[in-house]
């Protein structure tokens, strides 16, 4: 490739008397697995250029070499804490391609797993957000309380993270005996626990002073930039796929989507927490409405394949917003092309936009509030 397409780090930059260029990352703990090139004038950021790709694994290329079933374990690797939600659109897409009808009980089990995973992911994210705001209690508490739900997922799937529990046609295994009771008890305790976070974190002067009125994204800009998930809903756009394009049994459940109008880092940090409370509500509803017995998996033929040339795009609401999976099938056992359109990648576009004119010290609070997971963005 010629010089003009080289990434920013290798291209020559003109020296300036006032403007200094700083490389934040990829080894810097505040940047995640990515580099953010910022140009600063004194303490203020004048330009920002995100440089992701340090954890690019080629998931999409790998998917073209494996069949629809063996793709399952590696496709959840982009976000191991939210592995059920990463697999969800893929599984829904394959079901549409193969024409599989999923049993009712399996749909409820999937909703429960998906909501548990959303909480597990959000707690991890909240913990990291806390440590970068200099609030170490906010690291310890979510990291500890997260264990409650990890134990539940371990009971369901046998693995603490990377469950590989969703398969085309349902879920891998039925719930263990007595699960409903244990789940209800843990989720109730979890809910009580995270309600305490309001007083400890969200009314806390440390968090408020670091996040309020920093990185304000207006409603119009949020729509124009095409951001998704908590970032979008913090800017006053009511868009939650669980309500707007319900998949599986979300139609039958009462889902409330949380919206805030401020559009600053504080709103972006609070929406995922409100979502966790909503998740607890959904899990309790699903446990109540779930059929008490029945099949959870449709038996597939070995090496399932599509019916010829076809393409499908399915999307779900993950912990980081809309997560889409575009599968092109050519009637063989492997997908012809598989594309993951992930929330982190879509929210990254807001970073240069929000950091312009911001103080360098506010960079972590804006960056982590975008609900950005570097590994997912790179795929």
């Amino acid at each position, binding site marked *: 490739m010629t010089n003009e397409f*080289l990434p*920013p780090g*290798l291209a020559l930059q003109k020296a300036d008397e006032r403007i200094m260029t700083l490389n934040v990352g990829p080894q810097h703990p505040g940047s995640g697995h990515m580099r953010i090139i910022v140009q600063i004038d004194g303490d203020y950021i004048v330009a920002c250029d995100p440089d992701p790709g340090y954890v690019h694994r080629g998931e999409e290329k790998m998917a073209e070499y494996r069949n629809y079933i063996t793709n399952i374990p590696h496709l959840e690797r982009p976000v191991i804490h939210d592995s059920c939600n990463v697999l969800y659109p893929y599984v829904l897409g394959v079901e549409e391609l193969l024409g599989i009808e999923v049993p009712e009980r399996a749909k409820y089990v999937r909703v429960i797993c998906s909501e548990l995973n959303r909480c597990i992911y959000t707690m991890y994210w909240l913990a990291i957000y806390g440590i970068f705001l200099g609030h170490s209690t906010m690291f310890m508490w979510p990291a500890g309380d997260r264990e409650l739900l990890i134990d539940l997922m371990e009971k369901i799937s046998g693995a603490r993270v990377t469950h590989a529990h969703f398969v085309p046609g349902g879920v891998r295994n039925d719930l263990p005996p007595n699960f409903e009771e244990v789940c209800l008890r843990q989720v109730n305790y979890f809910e009580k626990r995270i309600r305490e976070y309001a007083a400890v974190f969200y009314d806390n002067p440390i968090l408020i002073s670091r996040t309020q009125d920093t990185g304000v994204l207006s409603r119009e800009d949020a729509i124009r*930039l095409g951001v998704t998930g908590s970032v979008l809903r913090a800017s006053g*756009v009511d868009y939650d796929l669980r309500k707007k394009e319900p998949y599986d049994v979300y139609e039958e459940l009462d889902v409330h989507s949380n919206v805030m109008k401020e559009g600053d880092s504080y709103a972006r940090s609070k929406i995922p927490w409100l979502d966790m409370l909503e998740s607890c509500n959904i899990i309790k509803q699903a446990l109540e409405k779930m059929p008490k017995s029945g099949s959870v998996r449709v038996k597939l033929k070995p090496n399932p394949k599509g019916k010829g040339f076809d393409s499908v*795009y399915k999307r779900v609401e993950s912990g980081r917003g*809309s997560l889409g999976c*575009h599968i092109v099938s050519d009637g063989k056992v492997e997908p012809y092309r598989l594309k993951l*359109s992930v929330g982190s990648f879509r929210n990254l*576009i807001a970073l240069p936009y929000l950091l312009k004119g911001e103080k360098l010290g506010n960079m972590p609070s804006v960056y982590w509030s975008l609900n950005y997971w570097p590994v997912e963005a790179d795929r």
Partner: protein
Amino acid sequence: MLKKNHAEEKPVAKPVAKPVELPAFEKNISDKIVEKFGDKIVVSFVKENRVGINVDKENVHDVAKFIRDELNYDHVESVSGVDYPQDKEIEVVYHIGSYSDPSLASQLIVLATRAVREENPIPGKDATKLPTLRDIFYSVEFHEREVFEMFGVYFTGHPDNRRLLLPEDWADLPPLRKDFAIKGR
């Protein structure tokens, strides 16, 4: 450079036959586009919540502008490249959605266009070029950068065609093309 010799086995892409019963709301959307552009576009499929439009690269800009201005779609969710070695073409598929119009919240327009595929690509310097949609949908900026590095499709008019995810010293084919094979597979 790794060459995969069974690339020829991949079939030619053909749109699937139209289903008999078309969903009314989605049919209405596709009718509006057909009414405006006539035979410049091909409706590849109409199914629940999805309308597929195929258009050649000369008209893709106009169609996208119409979709934004007249049909109230406002952002792009995903841009995927798909390589078709047998057609000697690379397809770029835009999934366009709407946040501002609640009636379109579950709808996506799947806008597909195709660029010429070069046997020996020189990304950015060969005929594999498409007009960018970045001036219409700002949200395609990073997506189109990704398609450029992964497929070698240069987007004319895009302000920033640098690489995004690949390593700095990458000197091979664009990796998601079908003739780039994973070692040992």
